[in-house]
């Protein structure tokens, strides 16, 4: 049984169908990347998996199965048990997703205490331990900092640490490296790959950076205008596909020592 399966999913905002007939299967421990241009519906798809579609959108057709169980008719209580424990998500700028007027530690402790019944002190220690495992230097200082006092890379590591607290089987990442500098991006990419090696986490990464997507993924999904245009192994999408859109997209990626315009 696949870890996650989307069957003929349609997602609509109002009367407009934005994502049409989306089929996607993810096995345990697999990394899948969804690439596409802005507005192609890639973020909408992963938000649907966590029941977090923004702006009144909803799934209007099809099924989303997690370990064979449909996610679409979960009660709010069941959702709460699933989110964070089994499936978690990291965002483009994790710092912006936190309360700007509270310290990291305060948010982290609250997060842990919504999921398990522990004392504040235990939750604090658990948080610190997670930050240390994500190789953040000086976790105690980070716990006492406000989000704006940290660099973009540190904030993103905090986001990953929070998402990984309960070692979820599925991690959804929405443009996790787009706001970062290239060297920090390389650090985060490496760290996410290590999550799979250490914890066996399956990852869906949504990104417009095709280089990052192809480095990380076992399977690449190409989306265009809300439709899955092409999908397959990395080698298929990069070298073998006959799909004209995919080919055009792959050729547009600048590469070192590649095409020169002058």
């Amino acid at each position, binding site marked *: 049984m696949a870890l996650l399966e989307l069957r003929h999913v349609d997602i609509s905002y109002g009367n407009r169908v934005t994502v049409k007939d989306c089929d996607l299967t993810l096995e345990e421990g697999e990394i899948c990347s969804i690439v596409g241009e802005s507005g192609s519906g890639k973020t909408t798809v992963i938000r649907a998996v966590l029941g977090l579609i923004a702006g009144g959108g909803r799934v209007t057709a099809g099924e989303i199965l997690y370990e064979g169980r449909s996610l679409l008719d979960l009660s709010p209580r069941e959702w709460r048990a699933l989110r964070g424990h089994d499936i978690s998500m990291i965002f483009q700028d994790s710092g912006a997703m936190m309360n700007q007027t509270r310290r990291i530690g305060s948010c982290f402790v609250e997060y842990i205490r919504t999921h398990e019944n522990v004392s504040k002190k235990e939750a604090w220690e658990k948080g610190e331990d997670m930050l240390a495992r994500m190789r953040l230097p000086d976790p105690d200082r980070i716990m006492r900092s406000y989000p704006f006092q940290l660099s973009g890379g540190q904030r993103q590591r905090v986001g990953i640490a929070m998402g990984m607290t309960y070692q979820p089987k599925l991690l959804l990442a929405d443009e996790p490296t787009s706001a970062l500098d290239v060297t920090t991006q*390389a650090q985060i*990419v490496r760290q996410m790959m290590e999550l799979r090696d250490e914890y066996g986490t399956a990852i869906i990464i949504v990104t417009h950076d095709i*280089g990052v997507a192809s480095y990380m993924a076992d399977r690449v999904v190409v989306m265009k205008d809300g439709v899955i245009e092409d999908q397959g192994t990395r080698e298929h999408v990069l070298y073998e596909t006959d799909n004209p859109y995919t080919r*055009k997209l792959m050729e*547009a990626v*600048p590469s070192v020592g590649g095409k020169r315009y002058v």
Partner: protein
Amino acid sequence: MFDEKDLILEARHVTRRFPAAGGRSLIACNDVNLKMYRGKTLGLVGESGCGKSTFMRFLVWLDTPSEGEIIYRGMDITKLKGRKLWEMRQHIQMVFQDPSTSFNPKMRIRDIVCEPLLNYGRIHASEKDAKARELLEMVELPGDFADRYPHNMSGGQRQRVAIARALALEPEIIIMDEATSALDVSVQETIIELITRLQREKNITIGFICHNLGLIQSFAHQIAVMYLGNIVEVMPGEGMADVCCHPYSRALLDAVFDTKMDFSKKIEPIQGEPPSPLNIPAGCPFADRCPHCQDRCLRERPVLKPVGPDHEVACHRFAKGANG
């Protein structure tokens, strides 16, 4: 490769300090020396906060350096004022990163692209229609777009309008600050094609700020790598990957993800983050992250030394007579 008679602009010992709290000063640019050549592209690469935008902003008078001079047409342009400055501005123009915030949202495209021409009295108001059409067609947009507002256009189309506006005065130099970073790759490719075509046709000099080495090496003639306000390497754009030797440039190069890379290779990113520009280390700025750091690097700041044709590096490992 570069002919000294094509030298169009030269920055000499440009330093910029910003006052900071506690009487300290933040050094955004430290003794920057760069040359730009007619019809060539200079790519300036570095991470956020390294001072690359600060430097380029001097060239369009959005800021002035604390020390040093920038020589253009035989004059130090940092000292210009009044009428002379106004006249000089038409020769150096700029394209900004985010095309959705660099236009007045209440102006039509026609007025946006013709405003510089009207300002310098190059055209009469009655000629606006024809001129706007001509400029839009130059950047491969339909002439009818003249009636639109910026919000009616896609990001790529808006960036074309920004290029049309910058080219309206037929400047000699254009500064582009991350002009393609907000765009999708396929759109980015078409914009780069457009820029390089216009450069060939009009022999324009381009100063391009970028953080992606993979992109900049595809069209720059000359690449300068900046770290913490210092230029650490200047090298030719063509074959850059083979000659680049500063440990920081190599780290930037290793951090490029593209579709032709070896996917089985484990990436080895440099650790940590740049130190704060408020307390720049005494020796080499890159010393605390450099895998080859020696005692000398902590004590003495390396200066740019030639290591090959059009290729200079600021690193003790490549200085003559150094060990290792």
